[in-house]
């Protein structure tokens, strides 16, 4: 036993401790926030009826918050959306958007006798806070007006009152939350475009980014449009995938490594699942979901790595026609983020008539007859440039804007036609509560 032995032993123990610390600090991608389940059971009461379209429409608006304003802010914007499952089963969701920490509620409503009840969950997108909520609109609290056959005349402030309770996590709803109708939503056309088809995986959403499932979720989060990331498999199938590599940020362990472009579509569908268990969707599956299953109005097809632009254009045309055939007003744009994709796009014979979205210089956007010019938000609010582009017939979207203070000011600037964001709920709140 000499000094060297003890020194070696000390170093060995230190190495073990450090390795333990390192292992404990290794990157772990948190699982999705668990949304409280079985809420719908509370709506299946005897005699409960679905709400009429005019009743749903009349519920939309900006509500003043009395009880609960310290938690959810002074105002809430309320908006309906829908999701279609299996082409026939339509579910209507009543979403409430609040600014503090990108909070939103997703509720379902039923008429029960002469009242309307709403039940659902709330979540803050910037963290993992989640809970349940229940509201009642009683006959003398506005239900009489909302349920009238001739609903509805323009509501006045205070005409409709949602008396509610909310709870944190799975606990019972024990905190009061009262909403009082204040004014209609801002009617100005504006696109709230959800990044990565609805939201980032890192925001712990219940569906993975760039999946069909998150496309169906996007309207509940406040989106009126979605942005996809398109790549092509080894056998040329356009798919939705963001990163350069297959990795644990986006996928479950599969044994496959390297770029998705190294694998065939069959290999990816049979061996790879996104973090929440979904398959990597094809571009066609994603566009079908947008048109058939949601009320989304805008699709921004971001060309991450495209080898076959003519194929993308063919799919593009096919789904524009499909939307038109179904009477759906959906603007589908081929996104051009780089010089490479721009060159590929300009090589198309019909590129001047193909709806495109250009992230490059304004002169390029005009040269290719883009329908949308999309500058990065880090350049500032492009008020003057936007006016020029809008005068030339283009729309202007900025990307990717998440900071609430910036969202508010960019919207207040009034120069934009849309914002691409990871937090649709924030953009929805600031857009809808803006007074015309």
């Amino acid at each position, binding site marked *: 036993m000499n000094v060297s032995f003890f*020194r070696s032993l*000390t*170093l060995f123990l*230190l*190495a073990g401790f*450090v*390795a333990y*610390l*390192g292992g404990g*600090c*290794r*990157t772990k*991608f948190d699982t999705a926030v668990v949304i409280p389940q079985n809420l719908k059971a509370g709506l299946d009461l005897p005699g409960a009826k679905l709400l009429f379209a005019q009743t749903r429409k009349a519920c939309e608006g900006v509500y003043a918050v009395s009880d609960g304003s310290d938690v959810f802010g002074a105002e809430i914007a309320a908006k309906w959306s829908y999701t279609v499952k299996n082409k026939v089963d339509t579910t209507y969701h009543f979403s409430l958007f609040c600014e503090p*920490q*990108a909070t939103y509620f997703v509720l379902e409503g039923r008429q029960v006798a002469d009242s309307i009840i709403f039940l659902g969950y709330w979540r*803050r997108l*910037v*963290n*993992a806070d989640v809970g349940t909520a229940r509201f009642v609109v009683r006959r003398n609290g506005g239900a009489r007006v909302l349920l009238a056959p001739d609903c509805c005349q323009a509501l006045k402030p205070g005409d409709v009152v949602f008396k509610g309770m909310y709870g944190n996590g799975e606990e019972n709803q024990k905190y009061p939350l009262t909403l009082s109708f204040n004014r209609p939503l801002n009617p100005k056309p504006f696109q709230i475009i959800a990044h990565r088809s609805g939201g980032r995986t*890192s925001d712990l959403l219940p569906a993975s980014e760039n999946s069909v499932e998150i496309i169906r979720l996007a309207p509940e989060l406040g989106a009126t449009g979605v942005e996809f990331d398109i790549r092509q498999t080894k056998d040329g199938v356009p798919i939705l995938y*963001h*990163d*350069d*590599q297959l*990795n644990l*940020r986006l996928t479950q362990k599969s044994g496959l490594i390297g770029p998705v472009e190294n694998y065939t579509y069959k290999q990816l569908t049979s061996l790879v699942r996104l973090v929440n268990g979904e398959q990597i969707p094809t571009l066609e599956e994603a566009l079908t979901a947008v048109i058939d299953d949601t009320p989304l109005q805008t699709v921004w097809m971001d060309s991450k790595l495209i080898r076959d632009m003519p194929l993308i254009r063919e799919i593009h045309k096919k789904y524009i026609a499909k939307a038109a055939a179904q009477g759906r007003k959906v603007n589908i744009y081929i996104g051009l983020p780089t010089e490479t994709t721009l060159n590929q796009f300009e090589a198309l014979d019909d590129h001047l008539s193909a709806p495109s979205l250009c992230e490059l210089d304004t002169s390029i956007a005009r040269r290719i007859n883009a329908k949308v010019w999309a*500058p*990065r*938000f*880090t*350049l*500032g*609010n492009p008020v003057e440039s936007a006016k020029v582009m809008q005068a030339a017939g283009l729309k202007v979207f900025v990307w990717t804007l*998440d*900071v*609430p*203070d*910036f969202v508010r*000011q*960019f919207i207040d600037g009034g120069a934009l036609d849309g914002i691409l964001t*990871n*937090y649709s709920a924030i953009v929805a709140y600031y857009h809808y509560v803006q007074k015309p």
Partner: protein
Amino acid sequence: MIHARLLIIILLLLTTASAWGQQRPGRTKRAPNPYRRAYQQGRFVAPDSTSPQVPFVHFPYPLARGINRATLGVTFTTSPRDITEQTQIDVPAGDLVILRGLTKNLALTGEMKFQFLQNNAMAGLRRTFPIKGRFYGSAGAGLGGWFGMLRLADFNTSGFGFMGAADVAVGFRSSRDLLVTFRLQKDLGLLNRTAVGQTVSDDGRIVSNGYGATVTLEQAFFGRRHAAIGFRALYTNFNWQFWSLYDTFDRNIFYPEVFMGFFL
């Protein structure tokens, strides 16, 4: 993951270097340290008088009034994948640490990290006290700020902020003059202001940003060059180095840092 492993390997190498760096081939047994008994008895020793060959800036030991110590080095921080996702940004920052004795137990501390496009500086006070034997402790607090400017390509952004920090440290001085310091810190955000173009976002709330733990070794490597090396684990909701990424998460994120400073 790879970066965490890399950091561990670097730290192990540095630790090994630390232990073996003291060895000199064929060295003769060193003369007894006249102050050794004082250490072992836990008696307070006059500032900086025990071994002027062992400078320190992190070790919680008194520094005589008017004495200055400083290191200049570099800090490596790896970007968290929560924010930068598949992209990894590993930009080293220059790191200047200064210590100036004010009174017997009180010292002025200063640290400046600079990357030119974004910089951070903090100044504070620390009070040191003997614990027992070769163990010493300190408690300190500081105020500071950061500023950054990114005006190139698709960026026209700038920002600045103020922050505060409080820390406690425990140090152990080995018989071979290796100074080991373990420090816990609590970080506060006092103000952050960022701008994109003409649009400004202010956040004047005083918030708890997070906390961190640091292990530092200070010694004369290979009997020649005095240096401080260390590893810092920050678990915070705001890291000034990544202000331009506009992270909106309301949760603490792990930032590993490795730093090395050479005594000036």
